[in-house]
């Protein structure tokens, strides 16, 4: 039972045997569990560190979160299909190196970004082809492309970072501010979030993603082109990794062939924290946003409190375990 639901039930003191909550309300409360956790941690941190609830710090957290959130949005669709995409970190690196090479060769930043994102789409599409018509387990397929693409990033960059781009537009994408207050990546994150929410909730494609993840055979027999749905989803995941690459490269003013290593795990953690089931068919994009924020706030808070980096890992892992256990306990 989620903490919120517990709280509600304790307050109400319903006699046993009486219908307590209808299933839909109950499901909603359970879904809101992660949000309650996030708010609780924020309130706790606000008391423990005076620096936490300052506008500057909040915006910093949001900007740090944006990279993981972008990848996690794509990963949510992948996990809704019952799949997994381990290659996102490597896709990010390849896109990042490609953009840097184009910028250094004197091409416009618009072209560089477009090529970077198209490259991400292509790499994701290849994953989709191997997984759907190729019938290779997603874990294995993307484990292979993760290694392969990391190699590609190293080959392209010859193993060294490519730095210093003299483009105002490009540095705005990761480092700029909207209305001098909100970091541009945060705005991009919110726009993409709204887009994904709409797609999952309101479009035929979104419905087909849930159906394919819930029961691929039944979906196929209902005329859903399940292979096409899968290819599209992995392509989207590649695009989202490339967009995260744009933000990271712009922000650091440098492309590193080793960038993004381990990002797939942060993204998966955000998706799972948000309540999306690894078995597929069940989950929502809002949960992923909350999950990404939870991880970001925890990182930031532990830094502010001066907790050693070693302990930070222990605490983060424990929080993820706890959240997943709470989510399971009522099923």
């Amino acid at each position, binding site marked *: 039972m989620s903490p919120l639901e517990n709280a509600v039930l304790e307050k109400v003191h319903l006699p046993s*045997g*009486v*219908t*307590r909550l209808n*299933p*839909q309300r109950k499901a909603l409360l359970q879904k809101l569990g992660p949000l309650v956790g996030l708010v609780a941690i924020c309130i706790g941190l606000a008391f423990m560190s005076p620096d936490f609830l300052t506008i500057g710090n909040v915006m910093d957290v949001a900007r740090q979160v944006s990279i993981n959130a972008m990848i996690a949005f794509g990963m949510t669709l992948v996990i809704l299909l019952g799949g997994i995409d381990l290659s996102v970190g490597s896709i990010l690196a390849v896109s990042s190196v490609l953009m840097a090479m184009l910028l250094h060769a004197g091409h416009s930043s618009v072209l560089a970004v477009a090529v970077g994102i198209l490259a991400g789409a292509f790499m994701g599409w290849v994953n989709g082809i191997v997984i759907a018509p190729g019938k290779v387990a997603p874990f294995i397929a993307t484990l292979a492309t993760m290694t392969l693409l990391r190699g590609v990033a190293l080959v392209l960059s010859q193993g060294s970072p490519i730095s210093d781009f003299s483009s105002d537009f490009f540095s705005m994408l990761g480092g700029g501010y909207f209305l001098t207050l909100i970091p541009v990546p945060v705005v991009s994150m919110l726009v993409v979030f709204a887009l994904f929410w709409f797609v999952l909730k*309101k*479009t*035929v*494609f979104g*419905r087909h993603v*849930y*159906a394919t993840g*819930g*029961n691929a*055979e*039944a*979906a*196929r*027999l*209902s*005329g*859903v*082109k399940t292979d096409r749905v899968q290819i599209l989803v992995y392509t989207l995941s590649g695009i989202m990794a490339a967009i995260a690459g744009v933000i990271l490269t712009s922000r650091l003013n440098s492309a590193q062939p080793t960038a993004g290593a381990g990002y797939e795990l942060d993204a998966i953690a955000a998706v799972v924290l948000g309540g999306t089931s690894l078995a597929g*068919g*069940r989950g929502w994009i809002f949960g992923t946003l909350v999950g990404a924020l939870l991880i970001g706030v925890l990182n930031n808070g532990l830094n502010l409190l001066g907790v050693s980096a070693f302990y930070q890992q222990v605490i983060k892992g424990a929080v993820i375990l706890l959240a997943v256990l709470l989510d399971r306990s009522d099923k």
Partner: protein
Amino acid sequence: MQVAMKGISKAFGPVKVLEGVDFSIVGGEIHALMGENGAGKSTLMKILSGVYTPDAGSIVVDGKPTAMRSTTDAESHGIAIIHQELNLIPQLSVMENLFLGREPQRFGVLDSKRMRVEAAIWLNKVGGSQIDTAREAGTLSIGQQQLVEIARSLSLNAQVLIMDEPTAALTDKEIDTLFQIMADLRSHGIAIVYVSHRMEEMFRICDKVSVLRDGHFVGERMVRETNFDEIVKLMIGRELQQRFPAREVEPGAVRFKVEDLADENKISHIHFEVRAGELLGVAGLMGSGRSEILRTLFGLRKKTSGQVRLDGATLDLRNPTDAIAAGIGFVTEDRKSQGLVLGMSVRENATLVHLSEYARAGIVNSQAENEAVHQLISELHIHTRDSELEVKSLSGGNQQKVVFAKWLAKPPKVLLLDEPTRGVDVGGKAEIYQIMNRLAASGTAIVMVSSELPEVLAMSDRILVMNEGRQAAIFSAKTTTQQQIMTAASGGL
């Protein structure tokens, strides 16, 4: 041995599943437990076998009140259950399955010799002497797997054997074997509880029958002193108007025509035509290629020869999307694995096939979708509190109506039905037949595969009989008999 359950009640949350149910069984009888889906049969049996503990009531074994706290508890009192979904571990061998959790050992090492010998003895007792004890359980047929489970129960010294829908996945021949074994066990003083929907089988094999309705015990009868109508009345609480409602339309012009259809290995030389408003039944033994005809027509299996025409136009069906676009619908045999996305709502399932009808530029118009769903729910009499409920919370019959709803959102020209009433209770069946009749009346050509001969005979206009991948005969349903169909199906004419 005598087991009596007295005043058993059980609720899950606010839902009362059983209320004061009495049920008793003695050694040497086969006792049917009947009732519609959701009547509480499975829950009662799970209580008897120690899976659930009752909220109230007692279980008395040979005069002594007994608590069944776990399946191990129940097994130690000689009560074993064989679930509809068999519980063997497919990767382990037959003997490993038989002795799972109590493997014979010598000095802490597996005694495989003893295991093999004892496994063979137990299998022999259930007529499974031809089963190789070293074979992987997953490679056995369903009927053989069931024998292994029965052997396992007997080796646990079971005196009461509960069988939940044991014939659901068996061929006619396997059912005959199973019934022989059941009769044999009965003569050895073992009590068998037979949980099933299948009325014909109950009359064939059982001695006594107890009926549950809505969680209440409504009666016990000696099978030879009762009849079909009385049991149905007990089950549904009213007289069933008509088991098979009549259809009053005359078939129109030829709508769907199949010529010389063949696939790679299962079927060949299939010819038939179906008129608008006509229902063609397809009968045959399991494995005779009945389902393969439907799957090939729906673009799921590769067609190697043949022509398919719908309203005069030749169709090229390479996948379900092609078939659906041409106006063909397909209610699959297994609704849980192929028909429904169980975790999705009634609404989402009902509109899965024709969702684009309610969408513009890929964006769903929720209002149009909801209106269509509510119309389908009332037209098909789908009993659900709310279209947003997960479809898995519905009873079998209502789930099947949702499967029909998927195809009826836009009336199909041809509807292929594979076992359309499997796992559906008597009342639900009649409603599904009415849906079929209404579709026929609106001009749909229907092809229905079914293992239940009474259903095929009553609902079809004509009947195609399959035998080993070839079509053995097409009979007019009015003039043919079960006997004639069975003869054709088994290769005689």
